[in-house]
C-alpha cells in the first residue's frame, strides 16, 4: 500500500467577488453590500488521495478549478471548507521566474529565485554551474534580466526551477517553454523526477502531454471531479465534455442567429459510423493489412450543399494518427436532404496493432464544422507482434550486402 502524500478531504472553495475596493465605495454601498458581492464556487466537495511517486494530471476546461486546487495544495490559498494535508517537502512551479527582478542580473536572480523556491544558498552554490549550463545563457549571466529576450528569461527561470528538491512538485502549464531542444531537456528532467520517486501534480491543457506523462488523470468541470483514473478514461470523459460544450455552443448560435444569416451551417449530423470487412459488418479484431470500409451514415435535416465529409482515427489516448475528408480527396459531394451513407474504402489497413477509435465529421463549404461524432466506432487490429507503433510496414530484415 503506497503512502498517501496528498490527502484532499471534501474541499470547497468559494470566491467572493467584491466590486468595491475603496473606502468611499464601501461607505456609500454600506448596507446594500450584498448587491456588490458575487459568490462563486471554484471547487465543490473535491476529495482525492494522491499516493507517493505518482504523476497526476489535473485537466479540465478553463475556469474548472484546476489551478485553484493546485494553489490550495501549495498552501497559497486556503480552502473555504474541508482540509488538505500533506507529507514531505513541497515546491510549486506555478509561474516561471516568480520573484525575478528586472533590475537584477541573471546571477542575482538565480539566487533570489532559488531561495523563493526553497533551495538553500549552499545548494544554490553547488548547483550554480549546472543551472547556468542548463539554461544555456552563460555569456549573459551577469546582465540585467530586463535585457533578456523572453526565451532567455524562461530558460533561466526553468533552469532554477528544475533544481528544486521536493517530495511533491506542483506544476502549472510551465513544461513547454523555449525551443525544441530545450523542451526535450525539460521533459527529460521531469522524467528524472518521476524516476526519483517524486510525486508530481501537473495542471495542463495539453491532453497529449498528460496522456504521455501521467499515471493518473483527474478531470474537473465547474469545480467538480467528473473523472478520476487512468489518463485514458479521464481524457475520454473530458473530450466528450468538450464536444458536448461545442455542440451546445453551435446550437445556441443557431437559436440566436437568424437561420438565413448562417447558411453555411445547416442542421445535419453524422448518425453513426459502421466498419465493414468484405461487405459484412466487422466483428472482432481486424487482421493488420486487410481491407476495411468506413461507412458514415449522415442525416441532413436541412439541405446540405457544397459540403465536406471526413473521418479520422485516434489512439486510445486521443492522439490523432490519421484523417481525411472529401475535399482533400478532391471529391465533391452532391447536395443532400434526408439520410444517406458514404463509404471510405481502405484497401489495406496498414495500421499498427492495437485499439483505435474513429470519428466522423461534416463541415460546410467554409470549412466550419457542423457536426462531429467522436468515438463513433472502435477499430481493433491484430498482428503477429513483429512491430510496435501506429503503422504497419511489414518489413523484412537481412544482413547488409556491402
Amino acid at each position, binding site marked *: 500500500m*503506497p*503512502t498517501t502524500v496528498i*490527502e484532499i478531504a471534501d474541499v470547497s472553495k468559494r*470566491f467572493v467577488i467584491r466590486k468595491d*475596493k*475603496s*473606502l468611499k465605495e*464601501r461607505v456609500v454601498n454600506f448596507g446594500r453590500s450584498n448587491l456588490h458581492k458575487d459568490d462563486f464556487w471554484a471547487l465543490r466537495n473535491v476529495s482525492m488521495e494522491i499516493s*507517493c*511517486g505518482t504523476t497526476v494530471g489535473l485537466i479540465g476546461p478553463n475556469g474548472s478549478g484546476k489551478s485553484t486546487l493546485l494553489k*490550495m495544495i*501549495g*498552501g*497559497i*490559498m*486556503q480552502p473555504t471548507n474541508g482540509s*488538505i*494535508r*500533506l*507529507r*514531505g517537502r*513541497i515546491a*510549486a512551479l506555478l*509561474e516561471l521566474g*516568480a*520573484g525575478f527582478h528586472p*533590475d*537584477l542580473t541573471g546571477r*542575482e536572480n538565480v*539566487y533570489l529565485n532559488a*531561495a*523563493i523556491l526553497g533551495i538553500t*544558498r549552499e545548494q544554490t552554490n553547488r548547483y550554480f554551474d549546472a543551472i547556468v549550463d542548463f539554461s544555456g545563457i552563460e555569456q549573459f549571466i551577469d546582465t*540585467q534580466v530586463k535585457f533578456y529576450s523572453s526565451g532567455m528569461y524562461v530558460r533561466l527561470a526553468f533552469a532554477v526551477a528544475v533544481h528544486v528538491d521536493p*517530495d511533491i512538485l506542483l506544476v502549472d502549464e510551465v513544461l513547454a517553454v523555449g525551443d*525544441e531542444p530545450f*523542451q*526535450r531537456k*525539460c*521533459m527529460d528532467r521531469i*522524467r*528524472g523526477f518521476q*524516476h*526519483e*520517486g*517524486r510525486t508530481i501534480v501537473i495542471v495542463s491543457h495539453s491532453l*497529449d*502531454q498528460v*496522456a*504521455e*506523462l501521467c499515471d493518473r488523470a483527474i478531470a474537473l468541470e465547474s469545480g467538480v471531479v467528473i473523472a478520476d483514473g487512468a489518463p485514458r478514461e479521464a481524457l475520454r470523459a473530458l473530450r466528450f465534455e468538450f464536444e458536448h460544450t461545442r455542440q451546445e455552443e453551435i446550437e445556441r448560435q443557431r437559436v440566436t442567429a437568424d437561420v438565413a444569416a448562417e447558411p453555411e451551417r445547416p442542421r445535419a449530423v453524422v448518425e453513426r459510423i459502421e466498419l465493414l470487412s468484405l461487405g459484412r459488418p466487422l466483428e472482432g479484431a481486424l487482421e493488420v493489412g486487410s481491407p476495411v470500409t468506413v461507412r458514415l451514415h449522415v442525416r441532413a435535416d436541412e439541405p446540405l450543399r457544397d459540403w465536406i465529409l471526413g473521418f479520422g482515427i485516434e489512439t*486510445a*489516448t486521443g492522439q490523432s494518427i490519421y484523417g481525411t475528408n472529401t475535399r482533400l480527396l478532391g471529391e465533391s459531394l452532391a447536395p443532400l436532404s434526408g439520410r444517406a451513407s458514404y463509404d471510405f474504402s481502405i484497401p489495406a489497413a496498414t495500421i*499498427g*496493432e*492495437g*485499439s483505435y477509435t474513429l470519428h466522423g465529421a461534416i463541415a460546410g463549404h467554409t470549412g466550419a464544422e457542423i457536426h462531429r461524432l467522436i468515438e463513433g466506432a472502435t477499430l*481493433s487490429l491484430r498482428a503477429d507482434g513483429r512491430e*510496435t*507503433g501506429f503503422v504497419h510496414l511489414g518489413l523484412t530484415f537481412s544482413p547488409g550486402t556491402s
Partner: protein
Amino acid sequence: MTVANLPASLGFLLLEGIVWAGPRPGSTPRAANREQMTNESQVRAARLATEPLRAAGPRQGFVRGTVQSLRDIVGQGELLGLLVRRELKARYKDSMFGFFWSLAKPLAMLLVYYIAIGKFLGAESSPRNPGGIPSFAVFIFTGLTAWQLFSDIIVSGTGSIVANGGLIKKVYLPREVFPLSVIGAALFNFGIQLAVLIGATIASRQFPTGERWWYFVLSLAVMIVFSTALALLLAAVNVYLRDVQYLVEILIMIFFWASPVIYSWALVDAHLDGILQDVYLANPMTQVVMGFQRTFWVAGDGQPYPSQLLQSLWITLGASVLLLWVSQRVFSRLQANFAQEL
C-alpha cells in the same frame, strides 16, 4: 511545437494491446515498470511513510500558530537577506550616485529646516537669541534620522504585500518576509544616516559618551518593535482596503509634527500641561525622538526633558512587544486570503 509532438520514442506508452518499445534509461516509473523503481525512490517512499500528515499552508491557532510562524520566518532567513538586498540593489540601480540618494533627502531636509526654522524663524540659539535651541543642526538631524527610519518602515511596509502581489499569488512563503525585508532595507539606510550623524557629533566635538548610549539602544528597540508591529498590521489591512496606504502617508506627515523633531520639548512643556501633556508624551515616537536626542544632542543637556523618559520607554517597549504579537496574529489570520484579494 508542443511537447506532445516530440518524437514518439520519448513516450513510453502502454496502449491497449501495444507494448511501446524502447523505454529510455531513466524513464518514467509508470505502473508498468514499478519494479524498476530506483533505490532513491524507495528511500523517499520509506521516509515519507514515517512522516505524519500536516495541513497545507499556514497553521491557525493563537499560541501554537505564533510558535510556528516564528519558526517559519527564522527558516526563511536566507531569503529575507536576499530580499533586503534586492530592495537595496534595485532601488538605486543604474543611478550614478547610488546610495548617495538615500542620504540626499534627509540632508536636504536638514538644510531646509536649519535655514528656514533655525535662522529665519529664530529657533537656533545665538548670542542675540540665547533662549533658542543650542546646536540646532545636530538637534534636527538627530530627530530626522529617527523619524526617517520610522516613516520608511511604515510607508513602504504598508505597501509591501501589495507590491509583491505577483509573488504571493504564485509561491507560498511566510508572507511576513515581505514587510520584514522592507524593514531590513530601511535599517540599512538608517545605518548610513546614523554614520553621518555620528560624524557630525565628532566634527562638532560633542561625541556622545558613556551611559547616554542606553537611551539610544532602548529608543531604537522601541522604534523597531513598534514600527514592525504597525507595518505588519497595515500591510495586511492594505490588501483588503487599498485606501490605507494613502491614509498612512497623511498620518505620517501629521505625526511628524506631533513629535519633537523640529521643535524642542521645552517649547511643548511651556504650552501643554496636565492630560494634554500626558497624551503628547504617550506617543511612542515622541519618546523615541527624545531618547535619540538624549544620546546625540550633547549640547541639549541643559534643556528640560520629561523626568521619567527611561521608565516610559521601558513601558512602551513592553506595550510594543504585545502589539507586535497581536499584529502578527492578525496578519496571519488575514494572510489566508491574500492570494485571492490581490
